[in-house]
Structures are given as structure tokens and as C-alpha cells.
């Protein structure tokens, strides 16, 4: 059998770090081939090698049986390889057409011929059912449509082989359904697809075969119909994985966080939180489930004082902290593991010790009368590094040098060490490997068992279901329902997150798909 693409024994190094070590990947014509691995396993690196952005240190690439040397993306394009990037490669103030023709612009007397290009874009869009307006400006269109522009970019260049890099990461469930339909249509038109993902469900749903890589090494290729999510997970992680987090029953009592009629606007004065009500009690973990962009970030920023509240109240332990400055909120007994640890959680160029003191540097015993005692910071840092198993060369190592998991452990150590009554954990396990995820979950549960309140924000249904005692579903800036994880299925939760309501029997009545052919996706 000839493969459209065959990557043999690829090796890619960055300095002393081996990102890809002896990986082989074979793509058959007309298949959806999943590339599975944890964050940092080397999936994107491998695909960037195929796309010509990186040059491999070893191995060979064959396209349609011929050995090729892909020196840059132009070569990849000429070979019919196109990539739909995870972080969209779109110029935001350009139109759809301008983005698509960039680099291979049609001209008339040396002038860019946008009119003809737009027509061609329109035709392609119709052929594949992409529904894209060629004249729209990128910053005005939805994430889903931006992704379809990325797809069009590859088709415009005549791609036969499409690489999708974590395509569902920022899509709504509806958009995911549409994407899967588009992928199937592409296959029907004779294209072949490589799908990079770490989501097992997607793989089971759409792929024909799966190649698994772990820590930069190729583990093997299996046929999807002959495997199971559990098997794939063990292949990916390298050991048996328990999907259930062990925890006892919750004993909630007494309100800690009480939010009433909260209204929050974004910088364009558009309401992102619309009269939201929520409470969290001592000794329970409340999970917020929802699709990204329904007001989760705004909610947490409003509670922690990072964003202005327009109306409504936020109370901590009965005290009104609405529109308090972040420091006052913190001092009222709130710990906050922020959703973007590089943006908010850490000063990456500071030593890890300084970062551990980020919330306490101005208080006794570290500081007195505005004078700071760095020895005391080091001492505190050492305690937390030990207690939270932060793997580092010491308190003086820059935070940047630590792995994501260890950075997150340091943040959790910093926040939990202050013994807050309310711990807000926003996407605490994003981008971490399974070991770190288990550690963090057990710490959250430990806080709960110590009688503290925990508010967990997550985009991963598994996490919300496994860790929370109650699940508050957020949709369009409101809590639309509060459910108990043991009485709810993932499907039901998914419907709530998409803004549907549940019938008595727990099924829904509205079809998510325009063409009514979504059942195979569920």
C-alpha cells in the first residue's frame, strides 16, 4: 500500500532537548489519521517539520512515494500539504480574501486583483459548504469562521493533505459538529487529513487510525475501530489511567461566596455577565461548566477585583467586597489560581522564590516599613517548594525555567498557603500532564475537606464532573442551571452548556444541526 505521506524515523532537537525522537507516521489516502499525545509530547513539532517550518535532524519524508526535502512552507504548499494552525495565522485587520491570497496574490498589471480572488474564494467556500464571506474583516468574524478561513487558505493553494492542529480547542459544541461535517466532506472530495489532538472522544468519533506519541517518541499506530478510549489513554500516558478522582462526600455548611444580580461589562460596554447569581459554601467544590466565552473569565475577574462590577454584589463571608481592589479581595480571604499562569500567575523573569511571595511580599514578616527582607522570602519559598513538590533547582531559579506543572504547583502552594476561605481555581490543569493533574485535583479536594470553599472553572467536562460537588452551568453570562454530577450525564451537561434546557427525561428537543444529521456525533 502506498501512502500519501510517510514520515520515517523523524528526529528533531532544540538545543539539548529532543522534541521528536524516531517518530514514524504513515497517512493513507482518504483517511482521517489522528495524531495523539499529551501536551508537549511533540505533536506540533512533528507537524511543523512536515509543513517545513522546522528542519529535522534525522529521518526521511515521502510524499506519494517520493522522497522530499521540505525546506519551507512554500515547498509544503507545492506538495499539496496545507496546515490549519491551532493559533490561527490570520492578519486581523485584513479581509478574508486578503488573508487567503497572501503570498500567492493574483495580479492585473502589477495590481493585486482582489475581485477575482474573492470570486474564487466564494466558489471554494460553496464547494465545501464553508459559508465564508470573502469580504469580511477577520476581527469581525467568529472563531469558527476564522477557522474555516484557515481551511480555505489551504484549499486555495490546492492542498490535498490537510493538517488540523487541535482544531476544536476554542470551538463551541455546535462549531465542533460543523467542523466534523466539513472534515468528512473534505474526505469525500478526495482529501486526506491528519488530526492533531489530545481529546480521546474526538478521535473515537472521526478518525480512521491513530498514531500515538509520548514524550517525543512514537508509540505506535492503531486502527480506531479496534481500540477504546481507555487503551488510547494508557498508550498516551504510558500507564493505566483512572479517570475517576477519589473523594468522599462533601459536608457543606455556611456560605462563603455569595453573588447577587451581578452585571459586568467588557471594554466595549457589552454586558458579559447578566444578573448572575451564585453561591459557594464551606466544604464544597462548585464547578463552573461552560463553553469558553460565556462570561467565565469576566465572572472570576469581577470576583477578584480585576474587573469592574457594573451592578450587583459580591460577598465574601458576609462582607460586601464588590469593586474592591484586587489586594483588598485577596486580604478578605480569597485565593486565586488564575486561568493564564504566564499572563497573570507568574512574573516569569522573577526567581521562583519571588513569585511565591507575590501575594505576601509587602506583609510582615517579609517586609517592614517598606523594606523587604529577601532572606525571609527564600525561607518561605523553600517551605512551599518542599510541601508542594515543586521540582526546581532552588528558590533562585527563574520561574520561566520550570515546567508548566511545577509552575502551577508553585502557584497553588502560594495561594493555598495563605489558607484562604475561598479558593478560586481557573483552568488549574490546562496544558498539564496526567500526573500533575491528579496532584492538583487532590489538593483542591483537600482544601474542601478542610472546610474551605472552592470555585473551580474548567472547560474540560471530565474535570468538572469528577472534581465538583455541584456544577453551575454558565451560558451567555448567566448561571442557567445547577446540577449534581452524580445525577447528570456528559451529554446533558453539554446541552445545558449550549444553552438548551433539559426535559423531564433528560433528553433535548432541539436539533443542533441544520441538516439533522448530528446523531452520529453524539
Amino acid at each position, binding site marked *: 500500500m502506498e501512502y500519501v505521506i510517510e514520515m520515517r524515523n523523524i528526529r528533531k532537537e532544540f538545543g539539548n532537548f529532543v522534541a521528536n525522537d524516531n517518530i514514524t507516521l504513515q497517512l493513507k489516502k482518504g483517511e482521517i489519521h489522528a495524531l495523539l499525545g499529551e501536551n508537549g509530547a511533540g505533536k506540533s513539532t512533528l507537524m511543523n517539520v512536515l509543513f517545513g517550518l522546522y528542519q529535522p535532524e534525522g529521518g526521511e519524508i515521502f510524499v506519494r512515494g517520493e522522497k522530499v526535502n521540505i525546506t519551507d512552507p512554500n515547498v509544503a504548499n507545492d506538495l499539496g500539504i496545507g496546515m490549519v494552525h491551532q493559533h490561527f495565522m490570520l492578519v486581523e485587520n485584513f479581509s478574508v480574501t486578503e488573508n487567503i491570497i497572501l503570498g500567492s496574490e493574483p495580479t492585473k498589471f502589477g495590481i493585486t486583483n482582489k475581485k477575482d480572488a474573492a470570486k474564487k474564494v466564494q466558489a471554494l467556500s460553496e464547494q465545501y459548504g464553508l459559508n465564508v464571506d470573502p469580504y469580511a474583516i477577520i476581527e469581525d468574524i467568529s472563531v469558527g469562521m476564522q477557522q474555516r478561513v484557515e481551511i480555505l487558505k489551504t484549499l486555495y493553494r490546492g492542498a490535498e493533505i490537510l493538517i488540523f492542529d487541535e482544531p476544536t480547542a476554542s470551538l463551541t459544541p455546535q462549531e465542533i459538529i460543523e467542523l466534523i461535517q466539513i472534515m468528512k466532506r473534505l474526505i469525500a472530495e478526495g482529501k486526506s487529513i491528519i488530526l492533531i489532538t489530545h481529546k480521546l472522544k474526538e478521535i473515537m468519533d472521526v478518525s480512521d487510525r491513530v498514531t500515538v506519541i509520548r514524550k517525543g517518541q512514537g508509540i505506535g499506530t492503531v486502527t480506531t475501530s479496534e481500540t477504546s478510549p481507555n487503551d488510547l489513554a494508557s498508550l498516551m500516558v504510558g500507564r493505566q489511567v483512572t479517570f475517576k478522582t477519589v473523594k468522599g462526600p462533601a459536608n457543606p455548611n455556611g456560605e462563603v461566596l455569595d453573588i447577587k444580580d451581578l452585571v459586568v461589562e467588557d471594554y466595549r460596554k457589552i454586558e458579559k455577565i447578566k444578573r448572575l447569581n451564585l453561591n459557594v459554601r464551606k466544604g464544597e467544590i462548585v464547578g463552573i461548566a461552560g463553553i469558553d466565552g460565556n462570561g467565565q473569565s469576566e465572572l472570576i475577574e469581577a470576583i477578584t477585583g480585576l474587573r469592574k462590577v457594573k451592578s450587583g454584589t459580591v460577598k465574601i463571608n458576609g462582607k460586601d467586597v464588590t469593586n474592591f481592589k484586587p489586594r483588598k479581595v*485577596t486580604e478578605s480571604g480569597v485565593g486565586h489560581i488564575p486561568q493564564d499562569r504566564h499572563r497573570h500567575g507568574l*512574573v516569569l523573569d522573577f526567581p521562583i522564590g519571588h513569585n511565591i511571595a507575590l501575594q505576601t511580599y509587602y506583609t510582615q514578616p517579609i517586609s517592614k516599613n517598606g523594606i523587604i527582607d529577601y532572606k525571609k522570602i527564600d525561607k518561605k519559598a523553600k517551605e512551599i517548594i518542599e510541601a508542594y513538590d515543586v521540582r526546581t533547582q532552588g528558590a533562585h531559579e527563574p520561574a520561566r525555567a520550570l515546567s508548566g506543572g511545577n509552575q502551577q504547583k508553585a502557584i497553588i502552594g502560594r495561594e493555598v498557603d495563605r489558607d484562604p476561605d475561598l479558593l478560586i481555581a481557573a483552568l488549574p490543569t490546562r496544558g498539564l500532564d496526567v500526573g500533575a493533574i491528579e496532584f492538583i485535583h487532590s489538593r483542591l479536594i483537600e482544601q474542601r475537606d478542610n472546610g474551605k470553599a472552592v470555585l473551580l472553572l474548567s472547560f474540560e467536562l471530565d474535570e468538572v464532573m469528577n472534581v465538583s460537588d455541584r456544577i453551575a452551568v454558565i451560558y451567555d453570562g448567566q448561571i442557567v442551571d445547577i446540577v449534581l454530577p452524580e445525577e447528570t450525564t456528559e451529554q446533558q451537561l453539554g446541552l445545558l452548556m449550549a444553552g438548551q434546557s433539559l426535559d423531564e427525561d433528560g433528553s433535548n428537543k432541539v436539533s443542533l444541526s441544520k441538516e439533522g444529521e448530528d446523531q452520529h456525533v453524539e
Partner: protein
Amino acid sequence: MSNRVTNILVPIVSVILGLIVGAIIMLVSGFSPIDGYIALWNGIFGDAYTIGETIRQITPYILAGLAVAFAFRSGLFNIGVEGQLIVGWFAAAYVGLVFEDLPKIIHLPLSLIAAMLAGALWGFVPGLLKAKFRVHEVIVTIMMNYIALHVTNALIKTVSDGGDRTERIFSSASLRSEFLANLTDFSRLHYGILIALIMVGVMWFLLEKTTLGYELKAVGFNQNASEYAGMNVNKNIILAMVISGMFAGLAGAMEALGTFEYISSKGGFTGIGFDGIAVALLGMNTPLGVIFGATLFGSLKYGALNMPNAAGIPLEIVEIVIAVIIFFVASGYIIRLLLQRMASKKGAK
């Protein structure tokens, strides 16, 4: 090679490369680089007088370097040191000459404070605009430089009844020292060097020992995380520019109260503020490093004055060397790469 060693090697290599480029230019344009550098050396260390004058020249360079470095450490690029220096110069000279019969213990500090306040004001504007409107401080400080130049010239004209030069300041506001002058064969060396060195200590203390310094550095590295940690980011940005402007204003006071004891209209910039960027870069934005950077550039600058007379070489050659050094320090990435390659090759052998 450890990071620390390369960090120190980059400026040293840059200085050497700069001097080599200077030599090549002299050679190509028909001068003897050896004569040139000897003249430069003698211009710096020739006798007690030149040494005194060199130290005098170093003084404002230290303060200008501190101003740039302090802003850099807070994540800001203060390219407006030049303008802050000029307004500081004027303010100190003005206070120095309008108050008669004040005791020195009041008049001198008052003049220094005036210079600091003027510099602070010129730093406050870009700081405020950055904090309030996220306007990039580089553009605003460039514009503020020209405003400082023209406004100061207009003020000088007003103060001196249409003339190009103010009166001399009263001796009660002067930094001049008979002791230092006698020591250095009647150079213009003044007590300002002590103020500059004290300010080096002040900057070190502020950055390394206070919670304010911790906050300024945090804001400089990551504003979002600083805000998350409850720091007032806007306040810190403004404060950083104001303190930086104070250092720059003091640099102007050195000229007003020490070197010249007056201010005259300027056709263009003094260049000290821009050289301050070089000083800070060369000193890796640390207080101690600034002393080294200022010593190097101050010496080159003063020593160059001897080159036309002693070797017939235009003194601009030194400016060329300084510019080349800045290029190399700024391109530290490539020098670092080369140093590491050389080191690993050695290691392999």
C-alpha cells in the same frame, strides 16, 4: 560558559570591537590610530587637570545612566533623559541665580530639588500618558525632548532679557569646590561626583531593598501578574518615570551648579541623555554597572577633546566609537551566540 560570564563579556567585547572600528576609520581616513588613541589616553589621564575634568565629565553621565537604567528596570524606555536633563539644568540655574543671600545649606539643596522636580515633571507626562492611555513612552519622550529644548531656550531668553546666556548662579548654590580644584590643578571638578555616587546607592537601595523596588521590577516584567497580585500598576509606571526623571534632572543640575554655573541657549541637544542609554546598556542596567559605563563614556568624551590638538584627528571619532559600541551591545544576542560557539568548540577540543 555560564550566563553570568557571557553577560559580562558582551560589553567588554563590544568596547573592544568599537575601538577596533574606530582605529580602522582613522586608518582609512589617513590618520594614525596609535597617535589617536595615545592622544585620547593623554586627554583622559594626562595630568591632574585632565583627570579632574574627566571625573567632572563622568558625573552627569552617571546620573543620566541611572535615569535610563532605572526606567529600564521598571520596563520603561526613557529616551527622554535628554529633555529632562535640560529642564533640570535650567531649573537649577534659575533657582541658583534668583535667590540672593540664602545660606548655602538651603540654597544648594533648593537648587538641586528644583532640578529634580523639573526632571520629574518631564518624566511625569510620558508616565501619565503611558498609565492612562497606554501611549508608548518612547514616542512621547522623544517629543518631550524637543519641547524641553525649545521651551528652555525661550525661558533663557526671557530670564536674560533677550540674551543667549543666563547670569552666573550665586556661589551659595554652587557645587564648585576649591579643595577639589586645587587637588586637580584648577579643573572644574566639583562635589557633584559625590551626589552622583550617592544616587547610585539610592538606586541600588530602592531596587534591591524596598517593596517599592520589588513592585517596580514586577510591573516591569509583567503588568498583568502585578495587577493580579494587587499592585497599582499605573501608579508604579508613573512613579518609575518620575524617579527616572529626577535622576536626569540631577544630571542637569551638575552642569548648572557645578560645571558651568549658568545655562546658555542650545542649538541642539547636549547628547548626555542619549549617551545615558549607552551607559545603562553597557552597565546592564545595574547601579554598579552604570558607574563603569559612565566612566568609560565620560572618559572617552572628555579625552576626545585632546585629539584635534595632539593628533589632528576630529573629536567626532569618539562619538563614532560610542555609536558602534551601542550597536554591538544592543546586538548582544549575536555576540552571545558567537561566544558560546567559541566556548563549545574549545570544550570539544
